[in-house]
C-alpha cells in the first residue's frame, strides 16, 4: 500500500517545487521594497537617476512576479494532492493561514500592482508612490502569513487535539508562536539581502563591461550599503533564531553541530568541519575548536548543548545534510559581510567603481543570497524531520497514499516543465538586466504608438524581444 520510496519521492517533489517557487517571491519581496525606496527618493530629491532605476527594476520585478504566480499555483494544490493526511490533520489551522496568504496576494495583484506597473502616466505621482508602497507592504504581509503557517508547524501552540485532529483554540497564540518572530525576521531580511546582491551583481557586470553610467554606479552603491548594514544584522538575527531553535528543537541544533554525545561535564566544542555519519553515530574527520560550541549556543564557557545520541534513533534529523547546508548558509553570510566591508573600504579610497577584482567578486556573489536562503530553508526543514508538525505528526504519516509509479511520473513532469518554462523566464529576466538602466523619457515610455497597455499582466511590462540579443549602450 505505502512504502518509503513513494514517501521519498513525495518529499523530493515538494522540496523541488517549493525551492523553485521561493526564489521568485524572495526577489519580489526585496525588489518591491527597493522600488518603493527608489520612488520615494526620486520624489524627495528629484534626482532622475532614481527614476531611471525605478523603471529599469520595475520591469524585472514584473517578470519575476509573473513567475512567482505561475509557480505558486502548484503550491496551493500540493498540500492536498501529496500531503492529504497532513491537510486533514492540521488543515483547520494551516488552511486558514494559507487562505489569508492567497487573499492578501490576490488583493495586492488585483488592486495596486496594475497601478504600479502600468499607471506611471495615468495617475498622479503621489498615488503611484502609494501603490508602490502598498505592493511592498503587501509582499511583506504575504510573507507574514506563510511564515506564520510554517512556524506553527515547527513550534505548534494554541490548539487542542480532538478526535485525532488539530482544533484551533487561540489564533493569536497560533500566529505568534515561539519561533515565528525569529523566522519572519530572518526570512524577510534574507529576501532583502538576496535582492541586494542580485542588484549589486548586475551593476558590477555592467561596470566590468565598461557601461559606467551614473545609474549603474548608484545601483552598486545602494546594494553595497545594504550589504554593509543588513548582512551583519542578519547574522545577529540568525544567532537569535538559533538560540530559539535550541530551546524548542534541540535535536535540530545537535544535528547542525554534528554533536553526538556529551562525554563529561566539560564545555561543548564547535565542530568546524567534518562529515556526520548517521549509521556510525559520529562525525568523521571532525575539525574541532574547544569551548566555541558552548560559547556560540549558550553564550557561556561551561554549559553543554544537547547531543544527538540523547534522542531516539528514529527521532534524529539527518545531520549529514544539515551540518553542511548550515555551513553553506553561514559561510556565504560571512562572504556577504566581507563584500559590504570591502565596499566601504574602497568607497573611502575612491576605487569602488573601478577595482576590477572587487567588481568580479561582487558579480560572482550575485546568487549568494538566494543560495544561502535555500541552504537555510534546507537546514530548518530537514532539521525538523522526522516531524512535519513538530512533535505531533510524523512526515511518514502525513503523505497521501500514492504509488511509486504515480509519484515518479508527476515528479518527472514537474522537473521537465519547471526547467523548460522557468529557464526561459529567468533567461528573459537576465536579458532585461543586460539591457541596463536607460534614461526614462516621460510620456513615451510604456505607451508607444498610442497603444493601450494592460493593467494586469506583469510579464507584459516590457516589450523586449525574447530571442534577439540585448544591446548595451
Amino acid at each position: 500500500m505505502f512504502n518509503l520510496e513513494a514517501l521519498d519521492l513525495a518529499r523530493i517533489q515538494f522540496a523541488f517545487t517549493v525551492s523553485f517557487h521561493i526564489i521568485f517571491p524572495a526577489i519580489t519581496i526585496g525588489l518591491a521594497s527597493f522600488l518603493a525606496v527608489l520612488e520615494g527618493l526620486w520624489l524627495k530629491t528629484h534626482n532622475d537617476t532614481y527614476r531611471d532605476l525605478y523603471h529599469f527594476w520595475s520591469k524585472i520585478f514584473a517578470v519575476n512576479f509573473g513567475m512567482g504566480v505561475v509557480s505558486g499555483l502548484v503550491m496551493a494544490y500540493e498540500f492536498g494532492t501529496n500531503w492529504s493526511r497532513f491537510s486533514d490533520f492540521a488543515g483547520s489551522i494551516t488552511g486558514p493561514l494559507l487562505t489569508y496568504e492567497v487573499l492578501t496576494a490576490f488583493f495586492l495583484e488585483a488592486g495596486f500592482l496594475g497601478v504600479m506597473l502600468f499607471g506611471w502616466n495615468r495617475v498622479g505621482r503621489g498615488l503611484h508612490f502609494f501603490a508602490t508602497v502598498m505592493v511592498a507592504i503587501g509582499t511583506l504581509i504575504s510573507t507574514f502569513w506563510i511564515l506564520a503557517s510554517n512556524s506553527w508547524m515547527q513550534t505548534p501552540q494554541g490548539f487542542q487535539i480532538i478526535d485525532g485532529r488539530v482544533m484551533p483554540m487561540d489564533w493569536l497564540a497560533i500566529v505568534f508562536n515561539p519561533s515565528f518572530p525569529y523566522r519572519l525576521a530572518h526570512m524577510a531580511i534574507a529576501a532583502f539581502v538576496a535582492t541586494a546582491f542580485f542588484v549589486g551583481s548586475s551593476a558590477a557586470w555592467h561596470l566590468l563591461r565598461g557601461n559606467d553610467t551614473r545609474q549603474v554606479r548608484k545601483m552598486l552603491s545602494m546594494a553595497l550599503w545594504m550589504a554593509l548594514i543588513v548582512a551583519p544584522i542578519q547574522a545577529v538575527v540568525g544567532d537569535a533564531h538559533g538560540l530559539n531553535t535550541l530551546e524548542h528543537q534541540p535535536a535540530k541544533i545537535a544535528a547542525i553541530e554534528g554533536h553526538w554525545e556529551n562525554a563529561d561535564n566539560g564545555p561543548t566544542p564547535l565542530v568546524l568541519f567534518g562529515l556526520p555519519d548517521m549509521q556510525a553515530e559520529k562525525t568523521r574527520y571532525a575539525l574541532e575548536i574547544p569551548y566555541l560550541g558552548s560559547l556560540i549556543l549558550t553564550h557561556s564557557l561551561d554549559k553543554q548543548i544537547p547531543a544527538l545520541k540523547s534522542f531516539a534513533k528514529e527521532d534524529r534529523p539527518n545531520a549529514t545534510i544539515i551540518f553542511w547546508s548550515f555551513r553553506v548558509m553561514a559561510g556565504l553570510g560571512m562572504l556577504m559581510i566581507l563584500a559590504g566591508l570591502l565596499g566601504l573600504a574602497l568607497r573611502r579610497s575612491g576605487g569602488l567603481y573601478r577595482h576590477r577584482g572587487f567588481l568580479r567578486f561582487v558579480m560572482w556573489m550575485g546568487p549568494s543570497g538566494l543560495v544561502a536562503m535555500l541552504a537555510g530553508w534546507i537546514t530548518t526543514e530537514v532539521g525538523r524531520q522526522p516531524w512535519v508538525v513538530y512533535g505531533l505528526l510524523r512526515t511518514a504519516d502525513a503523505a497521501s497514499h500514492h504509488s511509486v509509479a504515480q509519484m515518479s511520473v508527476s515528479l518527472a513532469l514537474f522537473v521537465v516543465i519547471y526547467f523548460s518554462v522557468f529557464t526561459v523566464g529567468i533567461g528573459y529576466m537576465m536579458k532585461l538586466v543586460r539591457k541596463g538602466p536607460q534614461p526614462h523619457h516621460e510620456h513615451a515610455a510604456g505607451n508607444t504608438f498610442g497603444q493601450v497597455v494592460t493593467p494586469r499582466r506583469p510579464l507584459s511590462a516590457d516589450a523586449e524581444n525574447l530571442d534577439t540579443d540585448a544591446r548595451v549602450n
Partner: protein
Amino acid sequence: MGIQGIDLSLIWGVIIAFGVMMYVIMDGFDLGLGILFPLIPDERERDVMMNTVAPVWDGNETWLVLGGAALYGAFPLAYSVILEALYLPLILMLCGLIFRGVAFEFRFKASPQKRHIWDLAFIGGSLLATFAQGVVIGAYIAGIPVVDRQFAGGTLDWLAPFPLFCGVGLIVAYALLGSTWLLVKTEGMLESRMRLFTRPLAWLLLAVIGVICIWTPILHPDIATRWFAHAHLVLFGGLALLAALAFFGLLSTLRRRHTHWPFVFTLALVFLGYIGLAFSIWPNIVPPSISLWAAASPPTSQLFILIGALFILPIILMYTVWSYYVFRGKVRIGDGYH
C-alpha cells in the same frame, strides 16, 4: 452550525461555489481561445484572439488559486480527499496551465521564427488543462469513495468512460465560450469565421449535455432518484426548460448576427449546467457521502477567514468589473496591449 446560528459552512460553500463558477466562466472563454487556435492559422488573427483576453486572463486564473486555498481553509477534509483522489488529472491540469500561461506572454516576445513553438505550447496547454478539468468534474460527479476520512479508491479511478467523456465535453463547452466571446470582441474575417464555427459547436454542446443528462442518472441511481423525485421535478424540469430557452436564444441571435447575445446565452447555458450539477450533489461536498458540514473546519477557523474574505472579495469583484469595463469594445488587427 456556527456562531449565533449563522451557518458558516453554508456561507463558505456558497463562496467557494461562486469562486469556482467565476473560474469556469472566465477562464473558460480564454482557455477556449487556445482550443480554437488550430482553426485560425493566420498569425495576425491569432494576435487579435490573444489580445482580446490579454488584459484579464491571469486575473481569471487567480480564482482557481483562491478556490483551492479557500477549500483548504474551510473544508480541509474535502480538500485532502478530493485532491488525493484526483491527483494525476489535477497535476496534468496544473502543467497545462503553466505552459499556457507562460506561452501567453512569451509568444508576443518571441521572434517570428520561434513563435510557432509558443503557439503549440499555448494550444497544447489549453487543451490539456481543459480536458483535465473535465475529467476532474466527471470523476467528482462519479463519486469519491471515502473510508475513515481517507480516500479509499484506486489511483486510476478517474480513467473511466464517464470522466473522459466529460473531459471532451468541457473542451466543446470552452470552445463555444471562446467562439462567442470572439463574436463580442472581434470584427471582419475573424468574426464571420467564428460565426461559422459557433453553430456546429452549439449543436455539439447540446449533444454533450444530452449524453451527460442521460448517462448520469444511469450511473448514479441516487442522482436519478433526486432528479425524478416529485419535489425536485419542478426544479430540474425548470432548469432543463431554461437551458432549452438559452439554446434557442443562442441559435436565433446567432442567425440574426447579434454580437453580444450569443455569448450571454452561452454563459447562461454553462451557468445552468453548473447549477444543475450543484443541486445534483447537494448537500454533499464530496459525493456521494460527505456533506458540507461533515467536511467543515471548526467554526473558529471558518469565522477567522470569513472576516478577511468579506473584506477583500468585494474589492476584487469591483476591480474585476472595472477592468472588463476599461477594456471593452472590439479588438482590431494591429491593436495591441503590448
